[in-house]
């Protein structure tokens, strides 16, 4: 796969073009080294499928989600106003996000503040690309027949009722999809939401991510599939804590698809 340059909105505008879809990367996807690999996988998938897309680059800013859920509505609405001004300025209509928290906020909370877009989570967008036949998977990719369990991100699943798209992506890999005892509507949180990602947990007898990773390990899955950079971090830490990193890996479904289409190194 030849290298390509991910265009920014500014660059597109300079060329007098506009993208079909804006890829909203999110903070984790922009700054966290592990999450950046997911971001690159999504970008490569969009490029491979011939989707005309762009990113905001340094014009993107936090959606305000962790501030809002931590109680700082002022900061949230300031962030929202700033982002909406940028998005509306570029005339953005359709957004695909790499994070279910960004997805939820932009889909459900931005419209009332003046930001109305067609927002999709990357699992939904990728599921559509697969259904449309725009992604050709290799015959001998490593996920064929592999035992995989999917950890529902709260803000994709319970928050927005999307349980099907990520699973359909895993099924397209011809993998063996196994469910954890707590899944879908009753899926257990990874422990990162509600701004927990940025602080220590309160006193207790177990870390939430260890509890959740135990659910996943119980399924004897070889891969824990995620759809959220924060879940990915939490589950990866959980696997390390259980000393299973030799036998169980944690991957975003975008990374799995990118590997299976042979567009990732």
């Amino acid at each position: 796969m030849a290298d390509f340059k991910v265009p920014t909105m500014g660059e597109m505008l300079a060329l007098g073009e506009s993208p079909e879809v804006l890829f909203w990367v999110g903070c984790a996807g922009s700054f966290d080294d592990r999450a950046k690999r997911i971001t690159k996988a999504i970008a490569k998938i969009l490029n491979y499928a011939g989707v005309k897309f762009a990113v905001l680059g340094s014009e993107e800013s936090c959606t305000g989600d962790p501030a809002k859920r931590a109680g700082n509505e002022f900061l949230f609405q300031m962030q929202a106003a700033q982002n909406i001004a940028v998005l509306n300025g570029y005339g953005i209509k359709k957004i695909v996000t790499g994070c279910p928290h960004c997805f939820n906020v932009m889909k459900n909370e931005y419209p009332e503040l003046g930001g109305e877009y067609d927002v999709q989570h990357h699992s939904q967008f990728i599921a559509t690309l697969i259904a449309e036949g725009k992604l050709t998977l290799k015959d001998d990719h490593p996920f064929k027949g592999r035992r995989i369990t999917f950890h529902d991100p709260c803000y994709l699943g319970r928050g927005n009722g999307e349980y099907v798209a990520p699973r359909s992506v895993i099924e397209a890999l011809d993998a063996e999809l196994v469910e954890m005892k707590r899944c879908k509507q009753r899926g257990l949180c990874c422990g990162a939401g509600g701004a927990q990602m940025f602080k220590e947990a309160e006193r207790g007898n177990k870390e939430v991510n260890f509890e959740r990773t135990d659910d996943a390990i119980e399924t004897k899955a070889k891969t824990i599939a995620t759809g959220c950079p924060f879940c990915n971090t939490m589950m990866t830490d959980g696997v390390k804590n259980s000393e299973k990193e030799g036998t169980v890996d944690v991957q975003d479904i975008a990374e799995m698809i990118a590997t299976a289409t042979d567009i990732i190194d």
Partner: protein
Amino acid sequence: MVDKMIFGALLLVAGFLFTKRILFIKRNILLGKDEDRSDRKSERWMTMALVALGQSKMVARPVAGILHILVYLGFIIINIEMLEIVIDGLTGSHRAFAGLGSLYTVLIASFEVLALLVLVACAIFLVRRHVIAIARFKSPEMGGWPSLDATIILVAEILLMSAFLTMNAADAIAMAENLDHYEGIVVSESAFPISSIIAGLLDGVSDSNIVLIERFCWWFHIAGVLSFLVYVPYSKHFHIFLAFPNTYYSNLEEKGRLDNMASVKKEVDLMMDPNVDPYTATAEGESEEPPRFGVKDANDLSWKQLMEAYSCTECGRCTSECPANTTGKLLSPRKIMMDSRDRIEEIGKNIDANGGEFKPDGKSLVGSYITEEELWACTSCQACVEACPINISPMGIILDMRRSLIMEESKSPEPITSMFNNIENNGAPWAFPAATRGDWINNV
């Protein structure tokens, strides 16, 4: 005649006490802040039909769910019998509906079957609570009154059903033997499929004692039901009424959506508008006290949140699904609901005791009832909202309380303060420079 007067007096007293209590609760709920839930009416009726009447969320846990449906059906259907009891009590008739013939036989027979099922279900519920001691019934917040309340209700149901069946047993004998008050009233034997078993035990009991048993059970049953009516609005059992309006006024938005505070939007709009002169931004007459951001005390909650607090039946499904609670943290979504209710009760009583004006008591919901440690343990995962059989949102209250901690009192754990600062300064929750946000592009 005396009978009828006593009966009428019982009805009046029960009706009065019940109404008084309902008006107190209604007033307390209306102490809450405005919230518009007047839209999407047909969807609301559907939600109520499905979730409250149809108990669709109860069966997520099949054992408790099915037993609950039995008790619920029994409760509703057996109450048809109450109509007859009231007519008999007020007019001195006996089994006023006996003239319905075979329909009556079917009705009474099905009441009996349901009564037995309710009795068995309640017995199993007691075993689940006290013998198997299911974890969610043993959380710290369930000590004392909440546990006693649940036990009282289950025992009361068992006693009422037993009285109902024993009454039928004695009555069947009395009617068959044409004892004076029961003379000429004919009810088919097949109306008594369950009580006929008890009737066997009454063999050889004298006529006068049969009448005594029947009358005792009749009075016990009606007095029991009326006491129950008065008791219910003081109890977690009040959900039998409030589940209906509470589901009607459900939050119909996606669970992930958290409201955008209108009071904040107003201020942000002013800040973003270059044409606003900050010194004249407050219009004439608008200088009243600014609203409190978020929830500190129970009367900062919305009326819907207060209705939820009164609707909660303390089943603990929320708590047993809460990732914080199940990993040993202090937070329990059920306790949030119970505390909200207990505090608004306290505020209500305070208002009544002080001539309609709340007299500051130095307490507040956050602080006196709920600690910051509880609030900061929430992951906002919505598991509690999903688990609630009647669509209560403990999470909504938790996050509203965080709003007051942050926006009124600037109280946050240090790492949260840093996160806010980072977002403000760098546009990300971490301390990376905003200008480097797109740097990953160069490494694709």
